[in-house]
């Protein structure tokens, strides 16, 4: 795909099958989703998704329009051109020895990352930041031996007071959305 990485934020109803439908629209056009995060939003029953996709602005716009047609998608916006705060979280399990441990801790401090687990021969480092920062920390830790790495992918929010992908309001009141409930799905297609 010739283009660049786009960040798309969507507000979706929290129901079974939604992720499948959204992923399917990208798949149909031959896009590869670089990263995808989903979690609860400020409104019960609505989740906010952030995904990053490589492509031309025109192609991305086409798919975004198609995604808006997915019934459970309440709002969707390509925020690539907007001022955003974008972060991701990574957990990095690094091999350690008595000799290397203090050097690793020094690197972790410089990056203002945290050590969240210690074992005789390893450390788990938690870091939050832009992808560049996470990449840099990983490259610094790699020589010591990466045992395991997990990254959340990008979450993004537009800067400033307005909410471009905020929950819809009605008559100034916040709308009520039926949460999907734990366990057994009520209505919806299974993922």
């Amino acid at each position, binding site marked *: 795909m010739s283009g660049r990485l786009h960040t798309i934020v969507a507000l979706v*109803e929290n129901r079974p099958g939604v992720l*499948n439908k959204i992923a399917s629209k990208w798949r149909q056009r031959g896009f590869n989703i670089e990263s995808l995060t989903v979690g609860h939003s400020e409104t019960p029953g609505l989740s906010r998704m952030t995904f990053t996709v490589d492509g031309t602005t025109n192609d991305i716009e086409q798919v975004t329009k198609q995604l*808006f047609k997915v*019934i459970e998608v309440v709002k969707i916006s390509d925020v690539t051109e907007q001022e955003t705060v974008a972060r991701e979280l990574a957990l990095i399990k690094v091999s350690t020895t008595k000799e290397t441990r203090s050097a690793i801790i020094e690197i972790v401090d410089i990056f203002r990352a945290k050590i969240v687990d210690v074992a005789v021969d390893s450390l788990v480092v938690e870091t939050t930041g832009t992808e560049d920062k996470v990449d840099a920390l990983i490259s610094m830790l790699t020589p010591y031996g990466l045992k395991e790495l997990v990254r959340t992918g990008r979450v993004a929010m537009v800067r400033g007071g307005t909410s471009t992908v905020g929950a819809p309001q009605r008559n100034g009141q916040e709308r009520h959305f039926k949460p999907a409930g734990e366990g057994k799905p009520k*209505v919806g297609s299974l993922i």
Partner: protein
Amino acid sequence: MATQGKIKGAEIIMESLRKEGVDLIFGYPGGANLPMYDALHKYPDIRHILVRHEQAAAHAADAYARVTGKAGVCWATSGPGATNLVTGIANAWMDSVPLVCITGQVVSWLLGRDGFQEADITGITIPIVKQNWLVLNVEDIAPTIAEAFHVATTGRPGPVLVDIPRDVQQQLCEFEYPDKVDIPGYQPTVQGHPQQIKKAAALIAEAERPLILAGHGVVIARAAEELQELAEKADIPVITTLLGLGGFPGSHELYQGMPGMHGMYWNNIAIQEADVLIAIGMRFDDRVTGSLKDFAPKAKIIHIEVDPAEVGKNVPTAIPIVGDVKAVLQQLLPHVERARHDDWRNWFREMRRDHPSIAIPETEKILPQYVIKSIYDRSPGDAYYATGVGQHQMWAAQYFWGDNPYSFVTSGGLGTMGFEVPAAIGVQFARPQSTVWSFCGDGGFQMTMEELALCREYELPIKFAIINNHFLGMVRQWQDTFYDHNLSQVKMFQPDFVKLAEAMGIEAIRVTDKAMVPTAIDAALQHPGAVLIDFHVEHVEDCYPMMPPGVSLSDTIDQPPVAQLQEALR
């Protein structure tokens, strides 16, 4: 357990369908929808039509919806019943037809365990429905069906599917139907933006060679009257896409026929010459545009369309107006100035005089075009026509110049062979008093001919015309034209269609002589029941005009090169 006032889930389905004004269901029973069939007899006002294959249920409901403007409803059982609907659902999806499919599913505790006749039909249909639901609680049935009809019939219509496990159909619940549906992520635009409307009117007023390109949206929105008013007021020639046929009176002096791959030559050139192109309820399919970069180079495009995702998808537009076609045309009409475009109208007259396009040569042979034109000429003005896919479909479209609105039913987007038989059934149920013709290819007919038995059972007086060239004609034409005459798998053994029809209890005539064509048509029209006519037409006859795939509209070939014709006929 108190059961007073409570009814079974299957009865809630029936009550919900009644609330939606449904009086006809096409379907097929099986293990997972037994409770629905058990409830059926309590609702004599809802008629069930038993098809012979679920694909036909979906196609018949699809055609019924196209003609009535109401949602079509079809039922199937789980597993193979549901998967047999898939082609029909995809067909309705591509042509934006409101279709509500209700499928039985294996009992809920067996879901995802590969139980007998389990298929993940909600998963399978995701890319070809507007929305689907797996209903796991009986109290969700009524609100889900209300939502299903709302989604299917509003905005850009389309198919939906409600999958209900058998145990949920049997659970008890009070019936309460929601008066209105409110889905936060689904708020279709109806009215056009007033500023855009004014801009469009101003652009139309400036135009010297304006052209209206009307599509299925005009038919779906039932906006033929508004379209005619616009065309007459501003004196604008009208061309309609394959699915737009019947959206404008064919005999009207402003009407110029169909453009596109097998459209009228003059229309393809007119698109290239127009200075303002008013595209109404259409989506610039590749069969209409040809090469996109060469499409309508001189035109500023006004695009009136209900689906915002279609705006700018294939061609850049000067003035997009998102909204319901009928509503937008009503908004636009008062702003449009009366005008005359005599030079442009003359341009059309001269082009049509100089380019024969659909003139039928004099010959003793039975040309398929002649058969189709004769059927149009001899049938009553309020007749309806369903077609399959291929050469006969293109000829049926080329020679359709009728005035009966919304009377041409065809599979456009998906191009589903075999559509012709079940589609004619759906049309005949929608219009029991009208003559219904089914234009069949000899290939496509063999895909769904099992439904002839249904015609006999329900005494449907459908007239089937098999345009029998003993070939998969369109594929044969492409192999001849683009694959160096390497005819591959386009000739097949053919059953005796006359005997086959008779076995199904249907009258049949075989026509092998040109003189018999009008006689057979008249006899079929006079017969009160169904009739099948097997027209043995010329085996090798190419469909022209033709715009080869991927080239510009300007390169449309009006008539085939004579040398090539001779070669083909050799």
